[in-house]
């Protein structure tokens, strides 16, 4: 019994309302003003302060420069069944909360960053520590907060720790739909019980296939070490097309081999040591 997202890329119009609604609700700052030239994508990736990100992929007609397909996908933390970040977290800050979602407790996280390389999707990131000047810090104590200060205020409380989508934990506790799903004008992002969403998604795939659309689900009935994703996607292209790993791998699956190699090395060293000492 978990809540999650079903993101249907066939309905996405690339309006980025999800990105903005997410930042507004979660009081996240702008990541900077850089023109990238990467289609209409100027935020480029998920980060500690960008928890929804819309990817734009332009496909050319073979042998020409003509773009005849423009795929858009709103990416987000997958809230995996077997979450790499959670396994790696040494402080127990990353937990599975009462809604079945992977959640970083901001007051427990110490910013060690172990979770960052442990995410198979590159979702989690550290938020820059926020150091207000003395004058600014005094301002934060005043009662009137304007928008800019609010977002920096969020940094103050979150800065220096790891950040990613909370699946709007606070909104869910109030019975609200997460901000991104609420803001999506075309119902490309749907929020709900994961089992219900999966049923809806399977039907949707069937209908699209009837219309001749090569639709597939990503993160449903997975055989990978990450398992099913609570935030799963409907894609019409191979996952790599959207910069998603075709077969995500949980870092801990490398552990047996790693331990075996270490044990082997230790054994070899022991043998070598013994040989040396015996030789004396």
């Amino acid at each position: 019994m978990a809540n999650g997202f079903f993101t249907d890329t066939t309905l996405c119009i690339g309006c980025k309302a999800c990105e903005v609604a997410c930042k507004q609700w979660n009081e996240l700052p702008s990541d900077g003003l850089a023109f990238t030239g990467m289609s209409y994508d100027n935020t480029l990736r998920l980060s500690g302060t960008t928890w929804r990100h819309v990817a734009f992929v332009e496909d050319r007609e073979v042998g020409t420069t003509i773009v005849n397909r423009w795929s858009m996908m709103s990416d987000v933390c997958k809230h995996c069944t077997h979450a790499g970040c959670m396994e790696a977290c040494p402080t127990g800050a990353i937990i599975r909360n009462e809604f079945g979602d992977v959640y970083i407790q901001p007051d427990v996280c110490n910013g060690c960053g172990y979770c960052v390389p442990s995410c198979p999707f590159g979702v989690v990131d550290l938020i820059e520590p926020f150091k207000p000047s003395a004058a600014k810090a005094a301002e934060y104590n005043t009662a009137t907060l304007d928008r800019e200060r609010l977002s920096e205020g969020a940094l103050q409380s979150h800065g220096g720790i790891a950040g990613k989508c909370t699946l709007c934990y606070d909104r869910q506790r109030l019975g609200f739909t997460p901000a991104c799903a609420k803001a999506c004008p075309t119902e490309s992002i749907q929020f709900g019980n994961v089992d219900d969403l999966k049923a809806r998604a399977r039907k949707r795939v069937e209908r699209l296939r009837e219309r001749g659309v090569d639709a597939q689900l990503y993160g449903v009935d997975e055989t990978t070490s990450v398992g099913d994703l609570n935030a799963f996607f409907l894609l019409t292209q191979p996952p790599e097309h959207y910069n998603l790993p075709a077969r995500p791998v949980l870092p801990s699956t490398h552990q047996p081999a790693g331990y075996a190699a270490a044990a082997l090395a230790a054994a070899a060293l022991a043998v070598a040591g013994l040989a040396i000492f015996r030789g004396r």
Partner: protein
Amino acid sequence: MPGLGTSFGRGGATTFLQDLQNADCILIEGSNFAEAHPVGFRFVTKAKERGAKIIHVDPRFTRTSALADLYVPLRSGTDIVFLGAIINWVLQNERDFREYVVAYTNASSLVSADFRDTEDLDGLFSGWNDFARDSGASAMAQQGAGGGRGESTYDTSTWQFERNPDGTLRRDETLTDPRCVYQILKRHFSRYTPRMVEDVCGTPRELFFEVCESLAANSCRERTTAFAYAVGWTQHTVGVQYIRTAAILQLLLGNVGRPGGGIMALRGHADIQGATDIATLYDLFPGYLPVPSIQRDEQTLAAYLKTNTKPTGWWNNFPKYFISMLKAFFGDAATAGNDYCFDYLPQLTGDHSTIPTTFAMKDGEVKGYFVIGQNPVTSGQNTELIAAAMDRLEWFVNVDAYENETSSFWKREGAQPGQIGTECFFIPAATILEKEGTVTNTNRMLQFHEKAVEPAGEAVSDAWLFYQLGKKLKALYANSTDPKDRPLLDLTWDYENDDERERLRGEPSVFKIMQEINGFQVATGAQLTGFAECKDDGSTACGGWIYSGVCPDKQTHRARNRRGDEYTSLDWGFAWPANRRMLYNRASADPAGRPWSERKKYVWWDESAQKWTGVDVPDFPANKAPSTPAKPGAAGMDAHSGADPFIMQLDGRGQIFVASGLKDGPLPAHYEPLASVIQNQLYKQQNNPTLREWDRSDNPYNGQVNPRYPYVLTTYRITELSGVYTRYIPWLAELQPEAFCEIDPELAVEKGLKNGDYATISTAVGEIEVRALVSGRMRPLRIAKGQRVHQIGLPYIFGNFGYTSGDTSGDVIPLAMDPNVSIHEAKTLTCDIRAGRRAPRGRVAQDDAVPEPERSRDGQPLIHGREAGV
């Protein structure tokens, strides 16, 4: 919106967004629906889910194209050729919805024998008076404010319909008479061929045929096609005729007034519909009642009512609405004895719209300027001219929530603030969340919103501003005995807020204002329940007749209604007129009053109850049976039969041929934009002969076809940013942080531009630098004689204020406008582009002595707004 108004009767979208989900095919052209109206686009995606075919015709492959089933490229500014060729294809293949066409349009009406078409006169219609060829005085006689070309006009007397001796229209229901509209239409569009589509639009013929087939296959009893457009069709010197072409096609296909059909005019801002309804235009009063004009000889009430009251159709009620409006304006002072204070109203002396007034300002004829909720120095055209014009003002007031390019025009690059004498005032405005009131959206629907938070700092609502300004002016003139001050003193101005806290803050009651707009009985003060209760004897007052019914009693405000359903949602908000969601919905039933099909059932005649019924408020007299015959010679609605669905029109029908109301022709004809990359392939006439231009040193044009400016330039907005306020929001600014243009890879290679490089775009007006976004979404097109056309896309939301940066597109667009609605041409221009950044802007005009106003040919200064010879 005279394109829709002259064709159907009212200048608003014929349908509502929610109805698009019922369409079997949607043609989106002249609009970037998904990007500019993302929330409304949900109904397009719903239609697509239900199996509808979505077609997007546009110069650029946009986010709308990405979601469409079929993307069709075309050269910007050629939509009349594209749509005209579809009309020709429909007529040649007899794919029109014949029953609908015969019963509900004027296709069968006979046109005067003296009418000559563009086919006969090589691009002109009969009645052309070329004043430009005459010298001196007569040319000047037609000039409006600020001078400019555009003096020549049409005499429309040869465009009129023939009548029988009893006054009814002569018709040929077999549609075979060579003088009937159907045959004229057939001849008129005969040269709009698929070949022409390839040569002029650059659209491949297979794509064109696929569009034709899709439209025709989805337009019949069982199926309907909807059109959606926005400013991509309006901002042209021929813009009104683009919409006319679409209207003709929709009438031929029988899609108007039917579910999933119609023409959806997408409004670009939250309350832009409301702004035209309750009259921010210089020549209209609330409810689209025209301001009296000296040019139309409307100096007395009788003369004014005579020109504006139509003998037949709903506009026969004109005096009721107008006199009720005067009663609302002037209260007890308005009596039958003084013509209800008609003399208090200003009289129009010419074109006082934005563009001519800007030129007049530049010439030193305008002393003061209020700019409220606008940012002309960014979203206007020839922005340097606008700013230079503001340098010459005595005073300037800007009301805005943010500092912007207009409020601080004296900070612009190259300006020398020390030399600008304009006294500037900046009044902080409350944002929408900081005030209550109604917004009228693109569905013509009023929705009320509460105030969420108190305004920040000293910000005030617009209502506060005007209410207090009115009170102060009245106080200043309170003791005046001068008759010229009577209009101000007699103006009703009783909007005191009942809420004590708001009253102390000086906020007027927006509810009381809306109650006055709704109208009331003068004797009892009881609210009108609708505009049908308006009287022309001074017993009713009604500030804006089309909104009547929104406050039907003292307590109710229907714009507050919030009971929605999956479709028409009649209990959600209030749509004008009379809460109708779809206009002309009588046409959703056949002439006998039965639905055209079960699938497309909407409004029909209930035989047992003897009234019209359905899922919407019928746009027809409620108890007028379909079999009711028209009464020859009768006035008003009695002149229409029970099967004439377009009640606002003289003959009750959709107008394929428009006899009056348009300045550039009864039928659309393709003219190239003011600046183009090709000669007009259809006629000798290159541009719209009636367009208005100002060819002067501070507003130079590129020329009709100038090899120095070989590329087509088109402007637009993007989802991420809208006005200056969005540039101040970091979350939006990071999504599109810098001004850019979109160019195709072929042109990029030719110009040595790499993706992300700076490029300089230049026209005769000036140059700007922007980043180049190189993408195959922009496609070079092949037009006549193998000419390769490159189109450059330029978003026009950037400026110097806020977190984003970049030059504004207005710096390269000259001012010119269409003859019907005085709209500028910003969607089709020509330009040059080169790699690299532009030179810094240096010394500008205000260093020089302020020049004399430009003079007319006989040496007289042009006085703002005064027509010489009157």
